[in-house]
C-alpha cells in the first residue's frame, strides 16, 4: 500500500447525501480485475457516460478542473450499500486520494483504508462550507495533512479531524494488515487451540 502523508489537490463537490457504492461502481463492473485499464472510466460510469460511451458534458467529473480532482467533498453517508471494493478501485483509478464527508458507509470506509485512500469525517456544516467554496471557485484546492490530522479549506481555514491510531499509522507508513497480523502468529495459534477446547461445536466444521 502506498503511504498517505500530505495532499494538496483539486477538490470536487458532491452535494447529495447517501451516494451509494452502486453509483461509484455499477454492479456489472464488479467483474473487472484490479488494475484493469477500464477502471478510470468505471467511477460514476452511468452518470458520466451515455450508453454509446460518449461523455455527459454536464456531469461534474467531466468538467475541466474536476477531471484532475484528487479530493471529493461529500455530504452524509458516502459509500453506503454494497461491500464492493471495486468502488474504491474506481475512485483510486480516477485519481481520488481522499474523501471528506460527514459520515461513511462502514464497509466502504474500511475498504478505502485498506487501499490507501483517506476517508475524512468532518461536521456536516464544515462539509457544506467547503463545498460552497469549491463551487464558488472551480478548481479550488484543499490541503490535507494526515500527520497533523488537519484539513485546510480554499479560504485558508484549518479544521482538525479524528482518525483512529491504527489506520492512521498504517496509512502514514503504507503498512499492510497481513504483515502486522503475522507478528501475532503465536497468539493466533494459541487462541485456535483454546477456542477448540472451549467451543468445539463451533470450531469443528463438518457435514454429516
Amino acid at each position, binding site marked *: 500500500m502506498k503511504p498517505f502523508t500530505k495532499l494538496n489537490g483539486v477538490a470536487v463537490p458532491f*452535494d*447529495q*447525501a*447517501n451516494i*451509494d457504492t*452502486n*453509483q461509484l461502481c*455499477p*454492479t*456489472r463492473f*464488479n*467483474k473487472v*480485475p*484490479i488494475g484493469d485499464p477500464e477502471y478510470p472510466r468505471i467511477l460514476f460510469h*452511468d452518470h458520466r457516460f451515455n*450508453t454509446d460511451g460518449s461523455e455527459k458534458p454536464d456531469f461534474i467529473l467531466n468538467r475541466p478542473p474536476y477531471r484532475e480532482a484528487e479530493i471529493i467533498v461529500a*455530504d452524509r*453517508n458516502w459509500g*453506503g*450499500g*454494497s*461491500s*464492493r*471494493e*471495486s468502488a*474504491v478501485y474506481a475512485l483510486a483509478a480516477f485519481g481520488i486520494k481522499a474523501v471528506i464527508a460527514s*459520515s*461513511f*458507509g*462502514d*464497509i*466502504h470506509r*474500511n*475498504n478505502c483504508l*485498506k*487501499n490507501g485512500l483517506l476517508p475524512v469525517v468532518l461536521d456536516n456544516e464544515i462539509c457544506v462550507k467547503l463545498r460552497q467554496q469549491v463551487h464558488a471557485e472551480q478548481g479550488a484546492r484543499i490541503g490535507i495533512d494526515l500527520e497533523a490530522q488537519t484539513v485546510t479549506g480554499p479560504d485558508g481555514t484549518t479544521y482538525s479531524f479524528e482518525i*483512529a*491510531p*491504527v489506520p492512521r499509522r498504517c496509512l502514514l507508513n503504507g503498512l499492510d*494488515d*497481513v504483515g*502486522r*497480523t*503475522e507478528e*501475532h502468529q503465536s*497468539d*493466533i495459534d494459541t*487462541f*485456535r487451540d483454546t*477456542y477448540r477446547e*472451549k*467451543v*468445539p*461445536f*463451533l470450531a*469443528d*466444521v*463438518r*457435514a*454429516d
Partner: protein
Amino acid sequence: MPAPQTMFEKIWRQHAITVEEDETLLYVARCLIHEGSRHTFDRLDEEGRGVAEPDKVFAFSDHYVPTANRELGLDAIADPKIRNMIELLASNCKKHGIRHFNIDDDDQGILHVAGPEQAITLPGVLLVGADSHTATHGAFGNLSFGAGASEVYHIMVTQTLWQRKPRTMRIAIDGDLPFGVGAKDVILAIIAKIGHGGASGHVIEYAGSTVEGMTMEQRMTVCNMSIEAGGRAGMMAPDDKTYDYLEGRPYAPKGDEWDAAIDYWRTLPSDEDAAFDTEVSLDADAITPMVTWGTNPEQALPITEQIPSPENAGTEADKSEISAALDYMGLKPGMAITDIPVDHVFIGSCTNGRMEDLRAAAEVAKLGKAKVPTWIVPGSTTIKREAEAEGLDRIFTEAGFEWRGAGCSLCTAINGDLLQPGQRCASTSNRNFKGRQGLGSRTHLVSPAMAAAAAITGKLTDVRTLTEEQ
C-alpha cells in the same frame, strides 16, 4: 458479579485474540464468499499465498447464475464474461480446497439463504461474508458482517480480521404485527425511522415481543436489511425456534456436541441490565405495509400515503434529495402511491426468497392473474424443491407468474436478468438505488404479499384490500 454484557460483547470477547491500540484481532469462525470474490483470489495468486483454514470458508454460486434454463448448467449463460465468473470461483475453490455450492449442486443458493439452510450459520459464531447482506445470519444469535475484498483476503490468509469495536444499538419492537404486515414492512419502517445511515458504526440487536414472536425466516428478513439502516451487523437472541430450525441440518453439531452447543448458546442472550450505546423503540401495532418511493431505502412510506413534496422538506439538502429522487423515479408530489403502475414484479432475493415468502406470495397469486411480467426466484435450489413439493410452483404458473431457478437474479442484476431503462418494478429485494436492477430501472421495495398484489393489479396495491382478515 461481572458487569452485565450484551450478546455482541460476549461473542466479541469469545473471538478476540489480541488488541493493538484501537483495533482487536478477531478469530473468524466462518467465512462466506461468492463469485464476486475474484479480487480476493487474484490477490492470493499474486502474493503466492494459500488459505489458512479452508474448512471454515464456504463458497456459493449465486450472483452470476442464470435463473432460466438451469437444466443446461453453464451453457444457459450467453455472456462469456458472466460464465467466466462462475468458472473462476469453481477453479479457485478447487485449488484451495473450499466447499463450493456450485450452479449444479442440489443445495446451491444465495449465500445468506443456503448458509443457514446448511447450518453453516450457527449461534455464537463470528461470521464474515464477502457481501454486505451478511447481517442476515445474525438472526441466529451470532456476529455476522460483510467485508470487502481486502478484508476477506486477510481472513483467507490468517482466519482473522482486525476490527475496531463498533457501538451497540438495541431496537426494541413490541406488540403484534397487524393483518397484512410482514417482516419486510418492519425493517422498512425501522429504516424509514432511523435513516439509511441511522445505525452507522453500530451493531444492532433487535429485541422485544415482536421479534420473539417471529419465525426464523422472518428474523432473517429483518436482520438482512440492517445494512440498509447503516448497521455493521444485526442480531437477535437465539431461542428454541433457533435450535429447532438448526437441529439435524448438515453442518449442525450432532449428538453430545449438539447438547453442549445448546448449553452454550443459552448463555448468549444479552444480560438483563446490559447497556446499549443507542436505544430505539418501535410499536409493531402501528406498522402498515410499506413501499419505497425514492432511490434509497429510507425513502419509504406506508402504502396508504402520497408521494412527498420537496416543498415540505426541512432543509435545502433534503429538498434537492427528494427532487432528484422523484425525477429519477418519474413520480409527482402528491400522487397516491396506489396510483403508481408497475411494469415488472420480482419476488426473491436474500431478503425475501424463502419458503414463507413464497407462501405469502402464493396466497395472493391465487386471487388473480399477473397483469405484468412477474418472476418468482427462490433463494435456493432446496427451497425450489420444497416449494414444488408443496405445489406452490403450480399456483404461480396458473396465475401467470414465471417460476425460475435459484439465485440473486433481479436483486443485483448482473447475471443477465435485468430491467430496461425506465421500467418500474415492485421488488422484494433490498436496494432501490439508481440503476440497481438495470440502467435507468426504477425499484419499489415491498414485501412478498405486496409484490404479488402489484402483480395481479398492475400497480402498487395495498394487499389488505385484496385479502380479508381471517
